[in-house]
């Protein structure tokens, strides 16, 4: 397990990785395995930040 460059949870979250792989496929992007792992590690933090934008509507 590795600490994500983006400060997210360690990269063992297979659910997060599956989501990222799906999103990459939707956009037609083909990063390396290491880059997919980095993106998966950053997903939770990014989603948390996006959710915070909806607060105090």
């Amino acid at each position: 397990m590795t600490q994500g460059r983006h400060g997210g949870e360690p990269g063992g979250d297979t659910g997060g990785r599956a989501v990222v792989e799906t999103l990459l496929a939707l956009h037609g992007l083909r990063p390396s395995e290491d880059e997919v792992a980095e993106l998966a590690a950053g997903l939770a933090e990014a989603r948390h930040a996006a959710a915070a934008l909806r607060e105090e509507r």
Partner: protein
Amino acid sequence: MSTDRAARLDRIAGLDAGLGAFVTLDRDGAAGPAAPHGPLAGWWLGIKDVIDVAGLPTLAQSRVESGDPAAADAVAVARTRAAGAAVAGKTSTMEYAIGAPDPDGPFPVPRNPWDRDRWTGGSSSGSAAAVAAGMVRAALGTDTGGSIRMPAAFCGVTGLKPSFGRVPNSGSRALAASADTIGPMARTVRDCAVLLGVLAGPDDGDPDSADRPVPDYAAELERDVRGLRVGVWRPDAPWEAPGLWTAYDEALEVLGDLGCRPVPVEPPAYRRVLAAHRVTLRCESLAEHRARLAERWDDYSPGFRESVAPGIYYTAADYLDAQRVRRAAVRELRGLFESVDVVVSPTASVTAPPVGSVSPGFERWMRHVHTGYWNSTGCPALSVPMRPAADGLPLGLQIAAAPFGESAVLRLGHAFQSRTGWHRAVPAHFFNTSVDDLGGGG
């Protein structure tokens, strides 16, 4: 090639040895002659290599670009040449003005004239280095999250991010189209004011360019700043350069001596606006590049991919939420700018980092740089040199105002420079090539 041009470009090439400020020098005058008269007559400019100059390639520090010469000048460049400026060439950046320096790529990694083991900051890296080293009198940069002000601060020069829409983006590579801004970089606020007066004004090719009157920015520099209400902001950062707050407090004393009235402030909704800026930047840059990323992923630099690919995390609803947060902040800022005329802060809490130390992890490192809020809210913001940090490297004082309040930030910056000499400091290696020795036409 004229003898004058040849001599000038030879001199620039000599100064640039080991710095990497220029990607392309216009040795053959492909960009065409400057107008014989005008407010910029005799000025030599560097143009950030995401902005088109006719006859020169726009490489954007990317393997993805074709390298074909641009067919026409960007509107901003055309305006400077019509005003008498000569284009020396294209200055180095990061790939498409985002990400981190790419030491493994085919382009120069710009180095700081104050210490060649340090980075210039980015992404208007070469523009800042070229001004700091006295290669050119001024340069054009672009700023989407701090790309004019951060390198200006790290290289000890003056840089202005105008209000969004003040200068047309026509002919410049887009990064995040709702925040991209072309602006001037020079040694003095006065030169930035003269250059902004030439650059500003609407253009049919950029629907976001503002159809508003262009003040005589240079003439307004002389207006008194006594009584100006200065919002004083002390931003947090994970780490601060030793000497930062001494330098900032000294700058505030200068503003006090000028008769300004300090008022402690916090920019409204700061963290939320930064979060909205990150979502906006990632979504808009991914939209701009995803077709080519799909075809040529490996041709983009790792730093670019690390910055842009996270755009996949967000939905359309997230993007719209981010725009709502930005609009709400602009409304709240109207209230703040009823109680103060400008807001000042350090441009960054750190000095120029060692080359190679900010990649990977560039986005986390950017927490030391206090510029993105003003991009997200469309406000003008200026960086002027203040007392260096304890390590002797330059620090910047940032001055921001309400949208289209450029006159206020320039006026205060000019008054600050009338009482301080930090903007006249020249790196020792370039001491005999000061800006006063940079006359001559194109």
